[in-house]
């Protein structure tokens, strides 16, 4: 090969690199094309509503089932639901939605993770459904369970309906509790620490640990708020989670790890690994989403008794629990026909019959008071008492800071939590450092 060729090949590689980088932000997938063409008002064809969601695997199939049922029972409307990758904060569905909104070609409705609502709502790209809700028979704000709407509102206006919602709850292995002589789950962190020591036994591969903290920013919100602290200042401009009153529970968890009474999972599959540790009796207690209850039950498969409890409180501070999961929102500026059809679908989804079906099928929380009162749901609760705990926790729900820049906060925090639990760095100084980092980020963003 001669030099000219070398140079052109290397330049070519460099350019293709740039191209590859640009590809990520380019147009949304082709699903959109299915939506067009059917909206001619003169024709008898049903109105097509496009719906992007981000829960995969079995849950995705369950969404498709529900959508099929809707389409069967509503001949004038055809909902096309498409899985777009994870809806989690910063996940693929969110990235695609950002790009699609920017490109002016978004779906009609989309699932939005509860912590991302401020980002999308503040942009004016979501339809304000406050008056639609007030006029709705099925979705009046008072119809929903207490705390359910916290994440759907931004600056006093409603931008979404609760869709797949969860809260973190406390899980414990009743068999291990019994053999350690403990009769009930801990109500406070003081008790939890003592119980963890009693429950820990054995060594090596066969060691059973009392507790396992989930190294994740979602339970961290509970840990900050219930320690008596706050995450951001009330104006959303600076981080307050590094202060002494915000790190109490984190300190307690870190001490348990250091004393060998708790274990930690790391790496990309940390969450699944924690579920598996609990299901295999490797840990006696952990904090996990109520949405994981179904998976845990099937993994344990009646090998031992287990239960859920309300999250423990810390030194007399009020319990505050973050919402989890996602809401469903309509994009602003879509044609009126689509708007009506989309709203019909959203109301259908949250009305008690579907709300109950979805909730019993997946383990996500019911969203309406009427759903909980249904005989079928009451029967379900009797059979699956672990969900009762999540319902009683709802009244402690506090929405996370309504900052459009909140995704930055949680990404920074996630790295800080890894520093504490994966690398054993000290809690207080690490969180102060992360708070400084977040301050730096918030100043630069200032949206």
């Amino acid at each position, binding site marked *: 090969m001669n030099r000219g060729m070398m140079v052109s*090949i290397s330049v070519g590689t460099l350019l293709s690199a*740039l191209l590859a980088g640009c590809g990520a932000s380019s147009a949304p997938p082709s699903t959109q094309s299915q939506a067009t063409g059917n909206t001619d008002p003169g024709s008898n064809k049903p109105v097509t509503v496009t719906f992007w969601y981000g829960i995969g695997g079995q849950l995705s199939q369950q969404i498709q089932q529900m959508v099929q049922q809707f389409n069967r029972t509503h001949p004038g409307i055809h909902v096309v639901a498409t899985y777009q990758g994870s809806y989690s904060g910063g996940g693929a569905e969110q990235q695609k939605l950002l790009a699609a909104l920017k490109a002016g070609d978004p779906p009609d409705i989309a699932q939005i993770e509860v912590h991302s609502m401020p980002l999308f709502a503040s942009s004016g*790209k979501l339809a304000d459904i406050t008056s639609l809700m007030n006029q709705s028979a099925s979705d009046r704000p008072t119809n929903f369970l207490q705390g359910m709407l916290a994440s759907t509102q931004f600056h006093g206006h409603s931008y979404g309906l609760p869709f797949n919602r969860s809260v973190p709850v406390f899980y414990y292995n009743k068999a291990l509790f019994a053999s350690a002589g403990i009769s009930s789950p801990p109500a406070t962190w003081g008790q939890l620490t003592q119980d963890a020591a009693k429950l820990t036994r054995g060594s090596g591969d066969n060691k059973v640990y009392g507790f396992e903290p989930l190294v994740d920013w979602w339970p961290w919100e509970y840990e900050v708020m219930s320690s008596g602290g706050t995450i951001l200042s009330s104006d959303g401009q600076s981080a307050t989670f590094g202060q002494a009153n915000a790190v109490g529970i984190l300190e307690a968890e870190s001490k348990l790890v250091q004393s060998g009474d708790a274990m930690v999972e790391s790496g990309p599959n940390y969450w699944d690994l924690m579920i598996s540790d609990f299901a295999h009796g490797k840990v006696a207690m952990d904090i996990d989403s109520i949405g994981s209850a179904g998976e845990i039950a099937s993994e344990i498969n009646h090998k031992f008794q287990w239960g859920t409890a309300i999250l423990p409180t810390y030194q007399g501070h009020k319990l505050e629990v973050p919402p989890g999961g996602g809401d469903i929102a309509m994009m602003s500026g879509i044609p009126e026909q689509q708007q009506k059809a989309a709203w019909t679908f959203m109301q259908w989804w949250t009305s008690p019959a579907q709300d109950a079906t979805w909730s019993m099928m997946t383990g996500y929380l019911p969203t309406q008071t009427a759903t909980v009162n249904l005989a079928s749901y009451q029967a379900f609760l009797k059979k699956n008492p672990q969900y009762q705990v999540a319902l009683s926790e709802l009244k402690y729900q506090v929405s996370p800071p309504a900052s459009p820049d909140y995704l930055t906060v949680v990404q920074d925090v996630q790295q800080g939590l890894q520093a504490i639990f994966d690398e054993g760095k000290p809690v207080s100084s690490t969180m102060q450092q992360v708070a400084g980092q977040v301050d730096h980020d918030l100043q630069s963003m200032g949206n």
Partner: protein
Amino acid sequence: MVIARWREKSLGWLMIAPYLVFVAVFVIGPLVYVAVLSTYRWNLLSPRPVRVGFQNYVYLWNSSVFRESVTNSLLLAIGMFVFSLPLGFFFAVLLNMKLRGTVIYRSILFSSYVVPLTASGLVFTLLLNTHDGLVNRVLEQFGRQPIDWLGSSHYALWSVLMVSVWQYVGYYMLIFLAGLQNVPEALMDSCRVDGGSRWRTLWHVTLPSISPNVFFAIVVCLIQSFQTFDQVYVMTDGGPDNATSTLTYYLFSKGFQMADVGPAAAASVVLLVILALLSLLQMAIGRRWVVDEP
């Protein structure tokens, strides 16, 4: 005469027009747009991006995460240079010995390069799993404690490097092999006749003969290393505690996970400058030692 020349010229432009359009739309356009974005504060959605001049660059300068990401990219580039290039050369020399089964080995060695990075990332995530990954199981056989390959900041970057080396070694091997097969037999023979040892032949005949290939491999290796993304995205999400965050992962995470476009655009401009400088530097150095064929 003039018309004929003009015709010839316009035909030339016409011929390269498709390429020019492509480059303008997909390369030059985005490049300029990114440079412009890097002077704004914006979350992709808000209707009014705020002009902030060079503040995003100042932000990067003061950001410990950005510095860590640049360092990690550099370490990966050095690691790839130190491990994958010599290893690729070693395999190329072996394959060039015309032993039996060369074709099979060549295919096997090259095959890892054909596997999509995401797929190999997933496979290695399983192999490197702390509790039941194959790697730790093998270590246990030798009485070693299991290692937290992806969850410990001491090992995570090494794991990413290991996957990158595995992925690319076949590619460099092929580049070297192409060069080796062009080294004139007569030159090797004459060196041997003059009493040159194998090492001397390698050093004074083989390497200079394939210097264009070596040069090319180094340039591509460094550029590729600075683009390390898929492995990180699949295996570690940049963690733990940013231990595996690379420059490209940083700008992706900032721009698309945190919707903070300004610093992300600024970071990609920095990446462009680094890569351009590296390429220029190499071309300047390469001029001294790359021996072109006549």
